[in-house]
Structures are given as structure tokens and as C-alpha cells.
């Protein structure tokens, strides 16, 4: 159906210079179910799309600035800041594209939030930030911005393979009293309207995202919580194994899309 298509000809160029890929041929994870992979940006109204095209209009940039300040802020018993070890935050370029991934010891699948907290607790002697705390979202926003324009590409090999399978199973499970899976809304019905919402493919390349409705930054897992709750289900917790597995699987569905973090959504 023509209506099911995202805006056909919009191009996402930020600050008139950074060209982002919002349409891409499906990667291996979705080659058999999607004909093209689309960023959620393409499904938004033109005003919302425009806000993301200029950093002066993008409300998320205030939070990025707070994250940048935090990068240089000494915290914890070791008297260190992120910059003490990583120097300028540009050193984080590309990091967001491969998240989530196995940790250094290859014992667990970690999201960006886990890596940040690992440095805080193990290397700085500082307290872990809560998954959806402002400090954490400001920091992941600042880190994600360093990868803006780089293609998403997660590893689903080796120890990550089992996590990926688990995430895939979750994606197709019809949860809750309304018995709806991610796939019902974001695979079978992307492009259609569910009440006032134009359904996208539910990609995560835009995260963290500034949601106008919430007037704040939303993390990937926060969005997952909202979507599962809307099926009248008992959700999984932000940071849970289930949502990290789901994050890996959803990331693989968006392979090749540019990291937009930080995006703007209604």
C-alpha cells in the first residue's frame, strides 16, 4: 500500500553537512522479511524531521552538553573523570555502532550503559548510575553523538549468537493481554496508522532520542518498556537480560543505518 511507505524523498542532512543514511538494503538479519530498512526519521512529520536537521533546533543538544560536562567531571574515590583515561570524547567515535556487545571477559552482553557503569564503579570508584537516570542518558547521548553518521553494525557471532537468538525470540513473541509482538507493529504494519501514530520499523539507530511528548531524552530500553506495556503486558526491566538481548537483535535489524543519536521524535 502506498500509504505504508515512509516519506519517499526526504534526505537527512544535519547542519547542512552531515549526510545520514536513512534507507538501506536489508542486512542478513532481515533479508527474508524486509525489502528495505528505514530509519524512524522517515516516518515523522516534516516539522519533526526538520528539528533533527539542525543542532540549534534539536532539543536533545542541551542534554548532550550536560553529558559533555560530565565527561570532564571528576567523580569517585579514584579522583578521575572519563577524560582522565579516554581524553577527548571524540575517542568514543564508532563505539555506539557496535552496541550492545560482549564485555571484555566475554561473559555477558553489555549495552553502552553497562560499559559506562563499569568504568564508573571499577575504574573511578564512583557509584553506578541508574539505567534511565538523567546522568546516564546525558552521557550516552554525548557518546552516541560521536558516532553520528556511522553505520550500525553489531556482532552476532560467537558468544553473542545465543543472545541474538534470544532477542529474536522475544521480538516475535506476542506478549500481554493484547497478544502483540514487536513484529506485529513494526514488521507487518510499519507505515500504517495505529490511532494517531505512524508506525515505523522500530529501529534503534536514532537513540537516545528526544521525545517531544515526554519533553526529555528516552533510552532504548525505556522505549522497549513503553512498547511492551502498551500490549497490556508485564514488562521487562530496563537493563534486564531480556532487553539487552532484544537490543542486540533489533540493532542487527538496522544494520547499515546511520547512528542518528540524538534524534527527535514526536
Amino acid at each position, binding site marked *: 500500500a502506498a500509504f505504508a511507505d515512509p516519506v519517499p524523498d526526504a534526505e537527512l542532512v544535519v547542519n547542512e553537512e552531515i549526510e545520514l543514511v536513512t534507507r538501506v538494503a536489508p542486512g542478513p538479519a532481515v533479508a527474508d522479511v524486509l525489502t528495505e530498512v528505514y530509519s524512524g526519521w522517515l516516518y515523522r512529520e516534516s516539522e519533526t524531521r526538520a528539528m533533527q536537521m539542525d543542532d540549534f533546533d534539536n532539543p536533545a543538544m542541551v542534554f548532550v552538553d550536560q553529558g559533555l560536562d560530565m565527561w570532564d567531571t571528576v567523580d569517585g574515590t579514584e579522583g578521575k573523570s572519563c577524560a582522565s583515561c579516554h581524553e577527548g570524547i571524540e575517542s568514543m567515535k564508532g563505539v555506539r555502532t557496535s552496541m550492545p556487545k560482549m564485555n571484555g571477559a566475554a561473559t555477558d552482553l553489555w549495552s553502552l550503559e553497562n560499559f559506562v557503569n563499569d568504568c564508573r564503579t571499577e575504574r573511578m570508584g564512583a557509584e553506578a548510575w541508574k539505567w534511565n537516570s538523567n546522568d546516564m542518558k546525558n552521557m550516552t547521548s554525548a557518546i552516541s553523538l560521536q558516532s553520528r553518521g556511522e553505520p550500525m553494525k553489531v556482532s552476532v557471532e560467537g558468544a553473542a549468537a545465543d543472545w541474538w537468538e534470544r532477542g529474536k525470540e522475544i521480538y516475535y513473541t506476542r506478549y500481554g493481554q493484547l497478544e502483540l509482538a514487536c513484529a506485529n507493529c513494526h514488521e507487518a504494519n510499519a507505515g500504517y496508522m*495505529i*490511532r494517531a501514530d505512524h508506525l515505523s520499523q522500530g529501529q534503534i539507530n536514532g537513540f537516545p532520542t528526544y521525545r517531544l511528548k515526554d519533553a526529555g531524552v528516552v533510552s532504548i530500553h525505556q522505549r522497549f518498556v513503553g512498547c511492551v506495556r502498551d500490549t497490556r*503486558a508485564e514488562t521487562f526491566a530496563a537493563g534486564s537480560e531480556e532487553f539487552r538481548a532484544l537490543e542486540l537483535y533489533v540493532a542487527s535489524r538496522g544494520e547499515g543505518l546511520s547512528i542518528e543519536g540524538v534524534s527527535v521524535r514526536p
Partner: protein
Amino acid sequence: AATLAALPVAAETAPGTIAFDGGAVAASLTGAPGDAAAGAKVMTTAALGNCVACHELAAMPDVQFQGNIGPALDGAADRWTEAELRGMVVNAKMTFDGTMMPAFYKTDGFIRPGDGYTGKAPEAELPPVLTAQQVEDVVAYLLTLKE
């Protein structure tokens, strides 16, 4: 409040005991005809039927933001009998295998059901999304959809 409203009344057919004939349910769940005006309300209220989340309905021009995942409901009563429509509202999966349309009068067989839209597990027995009376009200409204 939703929990209280959903407690089955003695004369009603309980969710687990519905007699399907294929996808159709012949007998009224309350033993009485529904109220079409109340049904229209149920269909447009987000916490209740929220049918317009997925269906367009030209018969309700005042209702903004109608979804288009399912077919438009105009003329539904020309296409389906009362029993078929009741069966679809009770549990559309009995009519359309694997359909996205939720079952509105069912209380078991769910994966991680929640307490309404709280995201939490239910503390008491799970009520159906719609009461027997609300199902009958919706059926009464659907029966008015003739072209």
C-alpha cells in the same frame, strides 16, 4: 476501577465457557441485547475497546486519528452475521487465524499479561478487556453498520 467493572455478573457467560461455532458465538453473553450508543463509546475509548486504533469508520466522522491496520468497519453488518461479529469481538483469533486483533473477552493463555497498562503483573485474577455487557454493546453498534 477497571477490575471492579469487569467482575462477571451471575447471568453472564464467563470468558472460559463461550460456545464457539467455528468463529461465531450465537448466544448473547448477557442474555439481553446491547446498547449501541454505549458500544460506540467502548469502541473509541483507549482503555476499553479502542477499535479505532486499528479500524477506520466513516460512520464516526468526529473521531480523530483512526488507525488503518484492520479493514474499515463500515458495512460490517452486511458482511457478517450477529453471531460472527460477536465471535470476533470475543476472540477474533477463532475467525482469523493468527490475526493481530486482540481477544476482548478472554482471560487466559497470555504470555506475561499485565495489570492493564501499568506494565506490572496483575495482583488479582485477570479480568477480560471488555465486560460481557460491553461486548454486547459493541455488537449492537456493529449491527448498525449497514451500507
